[in-house]
């Protein structure tokens, strides 16, 4: 009862703060003429989830209210700040973190310094160069579905935002272009006990050793509608003060592909996205606390997804033009012998209706299929999202 009252009070405070901020947008949004210019953007979303589970009880709940303001400051032509705070209320599933009560997180905050036309120095917390889904596609108006792909993103086998420094840039190469990112990060932390032994924890605020994770990503666009790239990163993940694990390292790697094109023959826009992520952690011995015995396993994980969407943008009918049909298949493979992670595959489909370029209603269906164990019921979601 007390938790319910506290949660309700917090929700009311959040609603009042949100309403105040929205109505004050005009005075906050752009500064008067001068060198310092700022914008408040971000997204808000709200959802409903239903699943028909005769065994464990049906789920029918409004869920996952989120308000994620992004603040951007341009101090000069060479200095820039960007930051995002996430306020989320309610439990969740389908790839997003489940939780109760209000979750507040500093998603990222970083300072940017333009070194030259092809190089920018970034410092703080930022989306790491492991993969592209978390950096570019996880926001509610860029993600055409209502969840992350299995194993992809910061609740999967790779980091999301990390703390450190980075060098980024885009380079035109005739009619093609290349972009790159080099990261120096605190890096992930190896968990060594109980059910999480062998798993990695990300978003380290304090590095557990003096080693820094080094990673790099390259993306190539030979034409504007085609993009592919890959990344690799290594780090020592064991704690420096732990003799058994201080030399344990990890290597993240992967590749991605993106195709976006208006196709006259189909009267619309086709988007194809895919990503493959791989994680390899050095073998180590862990102690089974229940039996006191030592065990080890081949600590390799992988995840991938492919997503296809079609929007009839060239159609005549005003309502049909706003629809987007989305399908995604993905899978995650965790190490055999680990006490965490469940290998599974997932089919997900969505029908999106775009009220505006930055406002969408999504109806989605997801079905997870574990490699072992009972297949859970399918989940149905409705999500409304606005980009601010």
């Amino acid at each position, binding site marked *: 009862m007390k938790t319910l009252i506290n949660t309700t009070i917090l929700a009311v405070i959040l609603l009042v703060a949100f309403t105040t901020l929205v109505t004050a947008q005009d005075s906050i*949004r*752009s*500064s008067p*003429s001068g060198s310092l*210019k*700022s*914008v408040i*953007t971000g997204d808000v979303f709200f959802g409903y989830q239903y699943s028909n589970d005769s065994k464990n009880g049906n789920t029918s709940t409004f869920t996952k209210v989120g308000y994620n303001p992004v603040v*951007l*400051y*341009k101090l000069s032509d060479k200095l*820039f700040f*960007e930051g995002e705070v996430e306020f989320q209320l309610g439990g969740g599933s389908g790839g997003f973190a489940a939780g109760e009560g209000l979750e507040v997180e500093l998603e990222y905050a970083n300072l*940017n310094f333009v070194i030259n*036309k*092809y190089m*920018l120095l*970034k410092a703080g917390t930022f*989306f790491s160069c492991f993969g592209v889904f978390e*950096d*570019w*596609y996880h*926001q509610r*108006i*860029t993600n055409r579905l209502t969840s992350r792909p299995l194993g992809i993103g910061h609740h999967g086998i790779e980091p999301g935002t990390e703390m450190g420094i980075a060098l*980024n*840039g*885009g*380079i*035109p*190469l*005739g*009619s*093609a*272009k290349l*972009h*790159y*990112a080099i990261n120096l990060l605190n890096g992930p932390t190896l968990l060594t006990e109980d059910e999480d032994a062998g798993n990695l924890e990300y978003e380290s605020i304090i590095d557990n050793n003096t080693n820094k994770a080094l990673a790099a990503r390259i*993306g*190539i666009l*030979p*034409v*504007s*509608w*085609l*993009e*592919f790239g890959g990344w690799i990163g290594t780090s020592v993940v064991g704690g420096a003060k732990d003799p058994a694990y201080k030399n344990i390292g990890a290597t993240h790697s992967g590749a991605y592909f*993106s195709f*976006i094109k208006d196709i006259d023959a189909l009267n619309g*826009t086709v988007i194809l996205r895919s990503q493959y992520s791989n994680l390899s952690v050095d073998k180590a011995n862990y102690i089974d606390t229940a039996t006191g015995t030592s065990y080890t396993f081949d600590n390799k994980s992988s995840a991938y997804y492919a997503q296809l969407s079609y929007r009839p943008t060239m159609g005549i009918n005003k309502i049909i033009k706003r629809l987007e049909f989305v399908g995604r298949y993905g899978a995650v493979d965790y190490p055999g012998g680990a006490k965490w992670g469940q290998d599974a595959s997932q089919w997900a489909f969505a029908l999106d209706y*775009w009220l505006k*370029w*930055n406002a969408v209603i999504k109806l989605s269906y997801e079905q997870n299929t574990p490699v072992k164990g009972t297949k859970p019921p399918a989940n149905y979601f409705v999500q409304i999202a606005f*980009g601010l």
Partner: protein
Amino acid sequence: MKKVVVIFFITAVIIGCATTTKIVDRSGTELWGQNCGRCHNSPPSSTYSADQWEVLVFHMKTRALITDVEAKKIAAFLQSSN
């Protein structure tokens, strides 16, 4: 697998070479259409003010890693037509 990657890369380079207009020679309108829909739907130029576009396009340099020449031309296009 390695053969597939090599073939794909060579094909991509050939496609890239076949396209005639260099990035530095494209107009702001073209670059806006080619870049802004990569992740999200392209916002109309009337959505934001000139000052806001300046900030938002800079943000796209840091996040989407668009090139400097693309950022300048896209910003100029959006500011002139909002």
